[in-house]
């Protein structure tokens, strides 16, 4: 049983309580800052922000789960740039790109861990994105847990018939994934084809507008968070 496969960690931290529209805007600004920062020192300062926020919000577990992946991103980037350019400047460039990727990964994780899919949809809608477009944009996050739980069920079913995934040479190991991939792809296709009629049957697009269960009041903290992100982006752009 895989249970909920999504990244959302319900805890009600200060990150959870931020207005989703504000979070979308702030995330965009932080990404801008990270992409604009070109010195390792600047990036180190920027990296402190999400790590500090994670610690303050009690979400370090989420960051740790993907910490190794972030480290791999960084190392691969340094190695690749170093290999291609064969000089120190290249490696430094690689370090900058790797740091950017790793920081954006952590920022994204914090956003996903503290924001429900529905809040993302609603946040985008309040920023003027049409509901169906906002729904479509966030659809992959909705389907991820469904997909993971189907993958879990399929793996279990095939292992119960003696399928062994570990051991043996690579080419035969790849072949063993066929019994997993075929039902998974079919399940994916089925959910893709049944989702649209199910959504419309449940009233999606019944009326031109929608109301929302999720209240999203704009508080002082949201202004602060956006201002902070804006300042960081501005500093990175004009430094």
């Amino acid at each position, binding site marked *: 049983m895989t249970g909920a496969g999504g990244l959302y960690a319900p805890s009600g931290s200060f990150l959870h309580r931020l207005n989703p529209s504000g979070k979308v805007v702030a995330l965009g600004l932080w990404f801008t800052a990270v992409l604009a920062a070109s010195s390792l020192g600047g990036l180190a300062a920027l990296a402190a922000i999400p790590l500090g926020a994670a610690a303050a919000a009690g979400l370090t577990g989420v960051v740790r789960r993907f910490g190794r992946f972030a480290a791999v991103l960084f190392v691969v980037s340094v190695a690749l740039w170093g290999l291609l350019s064969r000089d120190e400047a290249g490696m430094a460039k690689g370090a900058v790109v790797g740091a950017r990727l790793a920081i954006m990964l952590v920022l994204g994780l914090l956003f996903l861990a503290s924001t*429900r899919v529905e809040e993302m949809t609603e946040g985008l809608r309040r920023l003027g994105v049409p509901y169906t477009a906002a729904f479509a944009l966030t659809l992959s996050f909705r389907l991820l847990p469904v997909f993971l739980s189907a993958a879990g069920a399929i793996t279990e079913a095939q292992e119960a018939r*003696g399928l062994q995934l570990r051991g043996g040479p690579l080419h035969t190991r790849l072949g063993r994934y066929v019994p997993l991939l075929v*039902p998974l792809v079919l399940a994916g296709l089925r959910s893709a084809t049944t*989702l649209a009629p199910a959504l*419309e*049957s449940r*009233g*999606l*697009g019944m009326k031109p507008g929608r*109301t929302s269960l999720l209240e999203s009041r704009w508080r002082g903290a949201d202004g602060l968070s956006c201002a902070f992100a804006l300042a960081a982006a501005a500093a990175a752009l004009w430094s």
Partner: protein
Amino acid sequence: MTRGAGEPAVSARGLSFTYRMGAGAALDGVNLDLPRGSWGLLLGATGAGKTTLVRTLNRTIPRFHRGRLEGSLHVMGEPTSGAGVAEMAARVGVVFQDFENQLLSTSCLLEVAFALESRQVPSAEIAPRASALLGSVGLDGFEQRDPATLSGGERQRLVIAAVLALEAPLLVLDEPASDLDPSAREAIYRLAGSAPGRTVLLVEHDLEGVPCEGPGFLLSDGRVASSWPSVPAAGMVELSPALEAAGVRPPPCAALAARLQEAWPGRLPRPLPLDPEGMAAALRSAGWRLQEAPAPVSPARGAAVSRCEELTHAYPGASGGRPALDAVDLEILEGRVTAIVGANGSGKTTLARHLAGLLGPSSGRVLHRGEEVSRIPPPQRAARIGFVFQNPDHQIFAATAGQEAAFGPLNLGAAPAEARRRCDAALEAVGLLEKADCDPFVLTKGERQRLAVASVLACEPSMLVLDEPTTGLDLREQRRMMRLLRDLAAAGRTIVMVTHALWLLDEADRVVVLARGRVAAEGGPAEVLAGSALERSGLRRPDLALFASGWGALPRPLDAWAGALRPPEAGAGP
């Protein structure tokens, strides 16, 4: 009042539909009228066209399922042609059979709120109304639960609440009871019929416990084989042979009355109540006798092949604090069919998974022939204990049924010739040998379910654990599956099945009743059906078990009742 207020809720004339990829017409000239405010039944076996008709009602045919649609269809007095699916959702709320695919939210509250938001219910009213709807389907306190963490039956109730939130004047329930225990399904019927003025169309193939006084339409091969405006008292008795012939299970008392009527024409008391206790009392006071004493029930004996000792299982992160299984002690007897029953969420599937070694206990242990089952490496385990999952589509991947069945033995290292032999034997056992070269996805749901059994059988395990092997199957397929399991037990295999179909319990040797993670009762089927454990566990006793109580006799299958009841002054045989 909307336009056409006096017209039927549904009116079809010459309605035909052929799926683009389909061989023949799925609907073939259907004419029907469902009056407003009624409780209608749409009946038929698998493949009769029930779901196709439902799809035309909310316009997912032709919007999403392509094909040729002909004839006319009016819903709530207005023509459907040209309408979009979302537009139709204001007129007709549909709970589809594949309810799993209708969930899309991260919490139960948001799931139900979806329709309220679409209807532009003021924001402040959404949470209280969504909570009330959750409570009405028995999901109080589930507001913040993630739908992915619910049991199958709980998820089905959640979808029903989400569709009720549309407050559409016509509610269509396509086999809503398939994953529900009998008392949950009664609650759903009560709820569906509770809104004044709402029209309900219930799609079913099993009428036990279903309110069936209203109009009915019996579909067969895409046509309305028969229909009735309403069922007068005792009318179900006349209808029941036609229903059975079409693969629909009539209310058991009506079916019994029909058999008695045929064996003893004109001897049934009139009027004959068709509720179990009432019918037993009426027959007894009219002088009917129970001819044969029930055969002495020999308690099923045998060596214990598997044993749970103080088995406790708690899912990580599950709220409520109650473990899914709580100190279960249980023995599974060799060569017997053991049925595990219980209300939704009682721990049935968790217990089955433990018996097959797919889960490790939180505490306690599960032994299979003396070995701790979760410690047996998967390949060896597969050769000893087979597990058939509820959804056959989660395992079918091969291009032909034969290759699918051969997958297990080949995994276990059998030589191709030996794999072939085992695969043929398994396919023969499930009655699919002649379809060995078919693409599994052209098989019916029942055939795919049997293919899943065959693919596990081919590993030649001595014990087979099945999770809901009859869910989603029509009556013929359900009976066929039970016969298959009986045959396998007769050949010496140990069978454990999780089921909601209490009417199939007669076919089991032993019944284990679970309630809130504990064993509430275990014993032979007659003993369990006669006792109060089912009711105490939140289940409803089957009609024929209640009928048996009315006679002070042990429960037995329908045909045994028909053979054992005698009218006054009749001899030993007709």
